[in-house]
């Protein structure tokens, strides 16, 4: 579904991503791991169009995604969450969610101003969807709260919910478990699996918590110094000497 081929990013002499190639299979939960500074978030930013690669390609469903602007990538059906949460602080949780759906007619100036029934119908459908998501993620009480007033863990959930609101086919999760209560993590993982099983979504997950990665992902890509050093099932990867070496150092 997502194919990264020979992706390279050079930050003025620093090779952050070095000829990296991997694939994310449709309907899979794929992990992207590696020590700090190995280029995981840079890969995300390259895929999302926030950075332009020095070389290499990204294909989403056989369509070239490199060279597109971030909003165009999102419109293709890819959504993401950020490593450090980026919720809209001084907007309510509900507004955060309502922003995300694609093709909103009310975003046109005139349609927004006069709000014909077309716009109102679309809007109330989004509200309905948002309420369901909030309930699923245990956020039902805080819909009208400013997102910036919530705790860190709740903000991460708001971000996840916002990503889901755009009905993406592929979601890139940047450290979904970091800073979240272990009990809650369990619930989130359950929910991610459910989305994959029931709605056919695909996930690419960057995560430092190895328990989470091994538990959640069925395929893992390991980066070190911007290069892919291994890929395989959790079992294969965790026994790979190169991976152990990268993590424990030599």
């Amino acid at each position, binding site marked *: 579904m997502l194919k990264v081929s020979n992706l390279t990013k050079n930050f003025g002499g620093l090779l952050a991503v070095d000829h990296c190639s991997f694939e994310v299979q449709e309907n899979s939960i794929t992990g992207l791991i590696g020590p700090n500074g190995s280029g995981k978030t840079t890969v995300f930013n390259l895929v*999302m169009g*926030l950075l332009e690669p020095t070389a290499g390609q990204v294909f989403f469903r056989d369509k070239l995604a490199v060279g597109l*602007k*971030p*909003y165009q990538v*999102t*419109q293709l059906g890819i*959504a*993401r969450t*950020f490593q450090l949460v*980026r*919720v*809209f*602080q*001084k*907007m*309510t949780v*509900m*507004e955060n969610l*309502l*922003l*995300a759906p*694609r093709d*909103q*007619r*009310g*975003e*046109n*100036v005139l349609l*927004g*101003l*006069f*709000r014909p029934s077309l*716009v*109102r*119908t679309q*809007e*109330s*459908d989004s*509200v*309905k969807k*948002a*309420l369901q998501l909030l309930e699923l993620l245990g956020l039902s009480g805080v819909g*009208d709260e*400013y997102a910036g007033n919530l705790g860190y863990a709740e903000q991460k959930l708001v971000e996840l919910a*916002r990503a889901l609101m*755009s009905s993406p086919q592929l979601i890139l999760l940047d450290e979904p478990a970091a800073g979240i209560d272990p009990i809650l993590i369990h619930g989130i993982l359950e929910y991610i699996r459910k989305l994959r099983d029931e709605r056919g979504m695909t996930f690419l997950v960057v995560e430092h918590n190895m328990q989470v990665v091994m538990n959640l992902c069925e395929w893992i890509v390991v980066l070190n110094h911007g290069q892919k050093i291994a890929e395989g099932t959790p079992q294969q990867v965790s026994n790979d000497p190169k991976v152990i070496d990268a993590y424990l150092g030599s």
Partner: protein
Amino acid sequence: MLSLLMLQHLLVIAVIYSILSISLNMAVGVTGLFNMGHAAFFGIGAYTAAILSLAGTPFWLDMLAAVCMCGLVAALIGLPTLRLVADYLAVATMGLGEIARAVFKNWTSLTGGTMGLRGIPQASLFGLTFISTARFLGLSVACLLVVYAVAEGLLHSPFGRVLKSIREDEIAAQSCGKDTYWFKMWALVISAGMAGVAGSLYVHYINFIDPTSFTMWITFFLLLIIMVGGLGNNLGAVLASVMFVAVREGLRFIGLPTSIGAPLQQLILGVLLLLVTILAPQGLIPERKIIARQTDHAKGQ
């Protein structure tokens, strides 16, 4: 003493400033575009209306032209500058303010240069001439209501939601699939267009313009107003406009010599800003939360 006429005059000016501050609020308070050259749009609107009106164009048409001209200039300015991040945008728009003033001053054949343009006709609409201050006040309030309704309507729409998200975090807004460049463009164009309404009203009220009416001081005055009123709140912008204009124009009426009046005005406004910053950092009326409710349509499904 404060007569009824003076009160009416004060209110007309307050209403014009209300329109200006609502329009600046759209860019600064709602979208987070730090526009430091808003006086330029006010001036472009005013000169467009004045020149057309002197050439015999009816009031409604010169106001429409003022709105379009302001929107057009905003689009041209926005084309290169909206790709800049906040601080640079502030510098670029400040530049626009000074360029506009230089043009007003030096394009003598069109703008009358430092002598300005005088004898601008009274506004008239459907055969009714707004010759008295009271009548003009009615016209201004009607314009304010329209501008207010448009600003509020947009703020509560999905369009306004995108503008707010750009203010909060533009990268995140892009990651939500929003082409933020064009949303910023629309915000700036609409904001400038509203300033065009104010410019047109202003020239038909004062019947004279010269470049000194559109200095950077006006932009700062407007920024103060929206900060004190509450960024992102249009009602706050109106309230603070009335307060600020009352202080400014009121001091003129008391009859203090300029040497005392002008510094006193700045002193009072400064203290007002300090008090609001300390006691109500969000402004007199903080931005209102927008509560989205499920409508019957969705509930019924």
